[in-house]
């Protein structure tokens, strides 16, 4: 059974249609990547899953239950956390407070504390800076914090929206290594939106390529990698 199953999802922002019936699946413990040019509808897809955007049609099933009109609060409790595009760190909150906000939906205090320790083990730099304001961190550190904040919800599935965007190549490598670690050691399923096609297809098992609100190509990442030309044609199409 797949963990997350999206079928015929449609969404619009007023007159702008963003999704025209897309279907995506994420298996338990899998890494799935969502590729496509700017404006393809990748972020909208993630926002529909996390409940931030209300879809117009289609279904989203989480562990077999329909979750289409649930609130982000409910969905976070159910085990889906989001690492938003552009990190969206709370700039005037300390690193620790940012992590605390990731765990807002939980009330198991002891567990929250040990999860924070776990995040600090994963990202020792965050521990060094735990009292600093989120806004004072570097781009790479902010991305670590955004991921850490997502982890604090104790998700089964983590949605990541362009986690490598704007980072130096070395940091990009770190982020993808972290994603592998989260998948293999923490047992998390990941749905990763990326512009970095090469890296995304390297770490994922399955990929979807979107254009103008539709899924154009999908398949095992290993196969998509061999189809570089086709991929690039979709990635190149702007808006």
């Amino acid at each position: 059974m797949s963990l997350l199953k999206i079928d015929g999802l449609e969404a619009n922002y007023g007159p702008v249609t963003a999704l025209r019936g897309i279907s995506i699946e994420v298996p338990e413990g899998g890494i799935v990547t969502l590729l496509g040019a700017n404006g393809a509808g990748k972020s909208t897809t993630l926002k529909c899953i996390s409940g931030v955007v209300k879809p117009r049609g289609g279904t989203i099933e989480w562990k077999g239950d329909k979750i289409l009109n649930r609130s982000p609060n409910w969905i976070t409790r159910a085990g889906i956390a989001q690492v938003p595009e552009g990190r969206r760190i709370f700039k005037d909150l300390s690193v620790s407070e940012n992590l605390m906000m990731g765990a807002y939906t939980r009330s198991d205090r002891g567990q929250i504390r040990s999860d924070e320790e776990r995040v600090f083990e994963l990202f020792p730099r965050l521990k060094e800076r735990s009292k600093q304001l989120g806004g004072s961190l570097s781009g790479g550190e902010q991305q670590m914090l955004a991921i850490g904040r997502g982890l604090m919800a104790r998700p089964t599935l983590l949605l990541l929206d362009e986690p490598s965007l704007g980072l130096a190549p070395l940091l990009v490598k770190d982020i993808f290594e972290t994603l592998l670690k989260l998948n293999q050691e923490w047992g998390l399923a990941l749905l990763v939106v990326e512009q970095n096609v090469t890296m995304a297809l390297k770490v994922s098992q399955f990929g979807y390529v979107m254009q103008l609100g539709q899924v154009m190509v999908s398949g095992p990442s290993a196969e998509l990698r061999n189809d570089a030309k086709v991929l690039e044609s979709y990635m190149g199409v702007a808006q």
Partner: protein
Amino acid sequence: MLGQQILSGLATGSLYALTAIAVVVVFRNTRTINLAQGDFAMIGAFLGIVFLKDWGLNYYVTILLVVACCIVLGFGVERIIMRPIANSDWLTLFTTTIGIYYILHGVAGLFWGRDTKAFPLTFDPTPVDILGAVISQGHLYNMGWALAIGAVLYAFFNFTKQGVAMRALTDDPEAAYMMGIPVRFIVLLTWGLAGFIAGFVGILIAPIIYVSPEMMDEVLVKGYVAAVFGGLYSIQGAVIGALLIGVAENLAGGYIGSHVKTATAFVMIVVLLAFRPQGLIGIQKRREI
């Protein structure tokens, strides 16, 4: 004389500060300039008279009840009036609070009349001597309460999940929503917090200025001016502004003449905005993003 003016200025200033904090917190989480903040306190003061005089309740029980009632008032205003229009532009929100202001004035006038009422004295009126400065016990008492409430607010904003979430909402409401933070509930709490503060302000200020539907008009405006000192954003800025206003107007009243006392706050804000408009504009820009 000088020390005395400063001390009693700080005492009044600390009540402006509480009002200013409430104005700031509501504004930065809901884009609402809440003109009714003073009237929450006014209702609290009238209720204080009811509980204390008419029902003969104990002073501390009265404080508890008044604060509880004002919290409920804050909740009610959010839930019934502000929530349905929460996505409107700031002018609509502001105008609505003008409406609430007049409604609360009217309600108070209806139930308790338009005349000023004396609030039962809640402290020993004999002045005390502190390091040569003579100050009324009421002022001392109010400063003590204001400090205690300030400490409670500090703890709330820094050590509780809901308080930190309130700040997170100020920072990035959409990101907060994505984290599963129940944004509407936090906004409700924000208005409840405004009521909490107003309850204390009402009961603390009542023995000093007499109780009437208009009693808080001037305090609110000064609280608002103080909030502008903090760019309607910074609590520290608002508190500093409020204390400065309290002291400055007392000094102006004492050394220049009582007729300039009220104008002091406005002179200060005009000067501030003339010399430091960039701070204010910077923060307004930030709000628009």
